[in-house]
């Protein structure tokens, strides 16, 4: 019993940043007395909007660059691409892909510059990135408020009503709004299926050509999953029931919980049966999976939960991209480049003597982060629909970093899990704290202050708590040594 208590204590202490913010969220919810379904709907939509930006922070963190405040320049690259796409009148998914095409090389170039700066400010990357963000935002303002139209001829009365100087806010409705979110789930399945099959086939063929052993098992798995997704995506639209449930671009959480839960249970049961056959004993995780599946499904019949489920709509393509970002982060860490980044992140001296080009690795990490941030900002804007042309980028770094820190990341270590948990907690707080404050003070004007206060406070508190953890660990070590 005591042991259990101790391990519980340790678990709470190790996750105390998360624990603190969970408590804060619950307290604010209790004070605000808002319906949970409203909060859930809001948080899920904010999640689809912000997660990619936050996920772009992971790679530079592992490469020892700390929290990359420089993602602001990625956001700027995305915004510049939007001007041109809007100006030339491209709309919808095509316009969105064009934005990606234009912003990527821009982001690589900006990332390279940022990486150069970081290499000259080793050990102070975070503060350098923060200041660089302000500086870049200043240059950007000069560009959009004066140079665009003022120096470079750019005739677009819609964007530049006075001939120069971009208008403050631009409505993307009808051009890029929901360009990505409007892809139906069945189409997402088709795309995923094709990607998986092509990846498996090309990788195997390439390995064969190079005379290396082909990972047949892995390739088969990919082909099977890909084919299943492809078939589901194509055939599904001709089956009325499936088309009704999954044909739309936004899935109702009820359906996702129902079928996702079912899939989890089926997967877990098959795995359990297989490992029982092999005589393996470690089933805890699989059983937990099955239980989670059951709980998810059970929620659909409990009225209170069902109400929340019904209120939440998931834009399937955006969530698909988030999953891809997570996969990408994991995959890159399994490559030689990723291993080099981790080495550089742990100790630059060792990396140099192992023949790793430290500066180049750091620049690549910064470039990847900047590109991911640019794409993240595009996803953010197409979902939001209104584009605050002059200052949209200003809080990108601050909010993203606050979010990942709330999720338990440190300046030395960040994972996809930290990002996901962090976005959920941070944005829950972001939604409920102003409501709670309004309730207490009775004045709704306070919400903007509260948000600023939260995001800076969050960074300070979580950094302080992590420092406490580090000190406690050191003391632990000392005690053990004796």
């Amino acid at each position, binding site marked *: 019993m005591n042991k259990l208590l101790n391990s519980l204590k340790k678990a709470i202490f190790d996750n105390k940043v998360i624990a603190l913010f969970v408590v804060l969220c619950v307290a604010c919810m209790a004070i605000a007395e808002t319906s949970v379904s409203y909060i859930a709907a809001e948080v899920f939509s904010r999640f689809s909007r912000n997660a990619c930006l936050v996920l772009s922070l992971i790679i530079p963190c592992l490469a020892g660059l700390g929290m990359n405040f420089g993602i602001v320049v990625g956001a700027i690259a995305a915004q510049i691409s939007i001007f041109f796409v809007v100006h030339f009148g491209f709309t919808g998914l095509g316009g969105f892909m064009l934005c990606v095409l234009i912003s990527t090389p821009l982001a690589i170039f900006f990332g390279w510059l940022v990486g150069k700066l970081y290499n000259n400010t080793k050990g102070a990357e975070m503060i350098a990135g923060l200041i660089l963000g302000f500086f870049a935002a200043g240059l950007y303002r000069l560009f959009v408020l004066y140079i665009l139209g003022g120096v470079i001829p750019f005739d677009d009365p819609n964007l530049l009503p006075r001939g120069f100087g971009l208008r403050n806010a631009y409505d993307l409705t009808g051009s890029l709004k929901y360009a990505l979110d409007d892809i139906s789930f069945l189409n997402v399945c088709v795309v995923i299926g094709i990607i998986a099959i092509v990846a498996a086939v*090309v990788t195997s063929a390439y390995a064969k050509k190079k005379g*290396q052993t082909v990972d047949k098992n892995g390739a088969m798995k990919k082909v099977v999953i890909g084919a299943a997704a492809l078939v589901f995506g194509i055939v599904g639209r001709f089956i009325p029931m499936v088309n009704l449930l999954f044909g739309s671009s936004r899935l109702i959480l009820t359906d996702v919980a129902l079928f996702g839960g079912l899939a989890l249970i089926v997967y877990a049961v098959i795995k359990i049966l297989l490992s029982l056959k092999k005589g393996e004993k470690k089933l805890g995780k699989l059983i937990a999976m099955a239980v989670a599946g059951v709980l998810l499904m059970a929620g659909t019949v409990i009225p209170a939960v069902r109400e929340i489920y019904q209120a939440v709509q998931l834009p399937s393509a955006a969530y698909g991209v988030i999953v891809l970002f997570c996969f990408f982060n994991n995959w890159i860490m399994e490559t*030689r480049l990723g291993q080099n980044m981790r080495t550089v992140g742990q100790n630059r001296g060792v990396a140099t003597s*192992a023949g790793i080009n430290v500066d180049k690795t750091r620049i690549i990490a910064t470039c990847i982060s900047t590109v991911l941030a640019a794409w993240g900002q595009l996803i953010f804007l197409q979902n939001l629909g209104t584009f605050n042309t002059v200052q949209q980028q200003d809080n990108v770094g601050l909010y993203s970093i606050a979010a990942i820190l709330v999720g338990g990341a440190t300046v030395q270590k960040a994972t996809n899990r930290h990002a996901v948990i962090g976005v959920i907690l941070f944005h829950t707080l972001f939604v409920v704290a102003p409501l709670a404050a309004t309730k207490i003070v009775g004045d709704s004007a306070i919400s903007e202050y509260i948000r600023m206060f939260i995001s800076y406070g969050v960074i300070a508190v979580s950094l302080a708590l992590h420092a406490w953890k580090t000190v406690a660990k050191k003391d632990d070590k000392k005690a053990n040594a004796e």
Partner: protein
Amino acid sequence: METKYLLKMDNISKEYFGNKVLKNVQLHVAPGEIHALMGENGAGKSTLMNILFGMPVIHNTGGFEGTIQFDGQTVNIDSPQKAMELGIGMVHQEFMLIPGFTVTENVKLGREITTPTIASGVFGKSLEKLDRPAMASDARKALDTIGLNIPETDTVGGMPVGYMQFIEIAREIDKTGMKLLIFDEPTAVLTESEAQKLLETMQVLTSKGISIIFITHRIDEVIQVANSMTVLRDGTFVQHVETKGTTAAEIAEMMVGRKVEKLVDDAGKDTRTISDDDILLRLKDFHVDMPGEKVRGVDLDIRRGEILGIGGLAGQGKVGIPNGILGLYKSTGTVKFEGEVIETEKLGAALKKHIAFVSEDRRGVGLLLEESIENNITFTAMQIDGKFLKNYGPLKLFDSKKAREHALDMIKQLDIRCTGPEQYAGRLSGGNQQKVCLARAITMEPKLLIVSEPTRGIDIGAKKLVLELLAKMNREEGMTIIMVSSELNELRSLCDRIAIVSDGQLTGIFAPDASDAEYGMAMSGVKGGNK
């Protein structure tokens, strides 16, 4: 007949900031031999090896002069990568290991085995995927070669240093085409049995045709394993000799350039009067909570004017005593200085009473590495006594003129080899750093000077200077000194009395001429003589 050499470095010269650290040095290594590179600290061994390995520190400071021939070809080694491509590997003095990585990841660091992916087809090799099973089996093979039985999946952090050394070696021999391995003082951090095993491993490696450059201070090890050696002194080439034709004494002589004599031969005239009634420092039931060097109840009187030695084996608590007095670690019990109690829990209380301390942790506690020699010498005295300050009304400003005069004086007095008082303390060799530490202590004009391991990691020549300086201050100026040292010989050549500590407690206080047996017994924990 001319021997065919694997490596020929000729006329190598190198300057750091106008300070010539290597002058026309040569180094010739034959295939399949162990070649010892000998020299005192600061003789230029590390610089020479950094040149051979193409370390950035060389090329960031203006490169070097001279030629390198490897395997008969003249080569230009401008990066560690280039060195590795040629088949040169280095086992570093500070471990080049990543604590958070597994043994496998460390062994294969920078040379991971990978399989192609689609992305690698487009963007190049760096996006190939790691092949962990293949890496693990390679690592296992390398570990087996040197006989290290640890799981290759373990994380390196927290392993004993001996293991880390062998993991480094495993990494080097795992490289294909390895022709020359550099061992930079590999035995310095090892226990005796580990060191023996390492020497055997080196011989196994040469039997496979790999040449080894072996950098060490320990003459006996060189005689045991090396085939030939190059001796450097003060950045110049002294001699290339075969081990067979020489003796330990000759090697030592080549290194130092003068006959190795007894440690102190110029102690100055003894004008002291030491009395048992005049106690300067009194420790009563003194406990110190220093990890690895715990003190468990020591009673000790230090008489005014004497040099008291504190000896004992490593980890028995001798180093804990001075650290406790100075308040660097938590302590209990009473410390009385000139009859007054020192509150050891207050950091700096001892300093205020003019007790100066030269720490055994020179680079950590002893010096501000990124500050000039001058600042290092003056800052404690400035903090404690307000020396080197000028009053301008209510303001006190740094008196740079006085400080400079004093620093120059100290540099001259203690023969600190440097480019000037503005050189960073971190750029000095070990012996000169120690002299800076001493200079700072002296500047405080202490009533009691505590020196801890004053000669650790410094070469014979500097050692002698340091000890003579201590003797001179004691004999001529009557400064009371506590000297903590692991080297009994050193203590016996200098001290009036020597206290031996074992398991955190005093086991005896001896005269310097007491027999070896008495000392041996006391060190092994048998309570004995008291003088």
